């Protein structure tokens, strides 16, 4: 396993948001985390990436190393990148500067970083010199996914990549994700079950802070599963 999470508990004060969650992502695999709002999906993503404290007995191993409660920047530099919900670009910097910022900690040349993102999403080229705050939701999302790929991470955690996007743009996101499939491992929080079924190798369904179901997205399990009950 590239990512192995066991007994993950997360507390907000006295309230427990995640109960003993177990998740695994194999190298090259695309795994999805589905569930209703408030089920604990984002909390799990934040705990894995170091932004939210994991409980004392939680075990989070990435690439064979225990990363539980490490600093987010250390986790990012170790090759695990988190793409936040809400399409958080730095609005006061240009698109080009947003890309340069992502290249800086990995000593990737700014030019090479821009070229890499233009390769993944060619339409971004004409927006390079505008403030990132001026991008549409879909453009922001594709910039964020591209930006997270700088420095060749081993695993991307992507939180709700299609949330609030128009159908045409969702298709663009789908194309980019399917283009990346196999090259980089991914754990994606997603509510669009059509996209999940088309892309997933493995699916985790959550309810009230617990992982309720894990399935390989093979043809057999697809026909037998009822993911809708978790949404």
């Amino acid at each position: 396993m590239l990512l192995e999470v066991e007994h993950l508990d997360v507390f907000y004060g006295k309230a427990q948001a995640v109960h003993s969650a177990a998740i695994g992502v194999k190298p090259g695999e695309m795994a999805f985390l589905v569930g209703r709002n408030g089920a604990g999906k984002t909390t799990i993503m934040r705990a894995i990436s170091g932004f939210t404290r994991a409980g004392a007995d939680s075990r989070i191993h990435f690439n064979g190393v225990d990363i539980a409660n490490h600093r987010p920047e250390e986790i990012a530099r170790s090759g695990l990148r988190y793409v936040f919900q809400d399409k958080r670009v730095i609005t006061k910097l240009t698109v080009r500067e947003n890309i340069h910022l992502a290249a800086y900690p990995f000593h990737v040349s700014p030019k090479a970083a821009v070229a890499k993102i233009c390769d993944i999403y060619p339409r971004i080229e004409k927006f390079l010199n505008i403030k990132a705050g001026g991008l549409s939701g879909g453009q922001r999302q594709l910039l964020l996914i591209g930006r997270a790929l700088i420095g060749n991470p081993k695993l991307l955690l992507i939180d709700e990549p299609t949330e609030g996007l128009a159908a045409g743009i969702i298709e663009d996101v789908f194309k980019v994700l399917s283009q990346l499939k196999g090259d980089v491992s991914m754990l994606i929080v997603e509510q669009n079950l059509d996209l999940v079924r088309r892309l997933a190798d493995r699916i985790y369904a959550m309810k009230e802070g617990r992982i309720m179901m894990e399935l390989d997205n093979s043809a057999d399990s697809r026909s037998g599963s009822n993911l809708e009950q978790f949404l």
Partner: protein
Amino acid sequence: MISVIAYGLTLGGILYIISIGFSFTFGTMKIVNYAHALIFTIGGYILYATLPRIGFYPAAVLAATLGVIPIAFIIERFVIRNLYGESVDLTIIATYAVFLIGLDVLKWIWGSNPLQMSDPINKTFTFLGTELPVYRMAVIVIALALAILIEIFLQRSMAGKIVIAGLEDKETVRGLGISVQRYFTMVFIIGSALAALGGVLYAPITVVEPYMGFQILMLSFAVVIVGGLGNWRGTFVAAFFLGMVMSVTGRWWGPASEVAVFAILAVSLLIHPIDI
């Protein structure tokens, strides 16, 4: 009227120099740093102590500005760093305690009496029939030069862009693998050195005394709120605007000059309530 405008610009320049560091600490770390006033005061005292020994004003200014860096570093390392993520009330209490402790140390070394300094340039020039001190014009030029340098630093350097990004969304910057805290520490130390420079430049206009920083901090607080938290351009505009308001109001009715500043602060808060 020319002298009123010149005094307003001088005051604006001083307010800008002290407020910019305060604004960044507020914007990046969400900390209301009362110790900033202490650093401002220490700058004035170091100038007072070093000028007779060095004898060359620019060198004494440099000594006072750089001399506070170890003190700022200690305050950041042992106080400020423990306040990240804490409530604003707690940051005020903790940094106010540092201010009070530092104040007592200053009184212990130099006493409580105001110490007079002379105009380091001691020359005047005539502009539209009004005689103006060259020193005050120099303060305005230094403030403008600093504003340009800060703009270049933020817009052209990677460290500056990291600070801009950190001001907007610290989590995103950390998620990119950047240890944003290191840059915030750097900003804190630069801001503290600028506070000391503010004290150094203000000392010859007023007197050096233990509470000189407290009064200016309140004005600086108004500048930072009116200009927008962490908004370096807004801080520049607000500093010169409020400096001018103080000067013009003070010309007609002295006691009202600071009241006018805080009235503008109140209106600003009514229009744009801050969320910290």
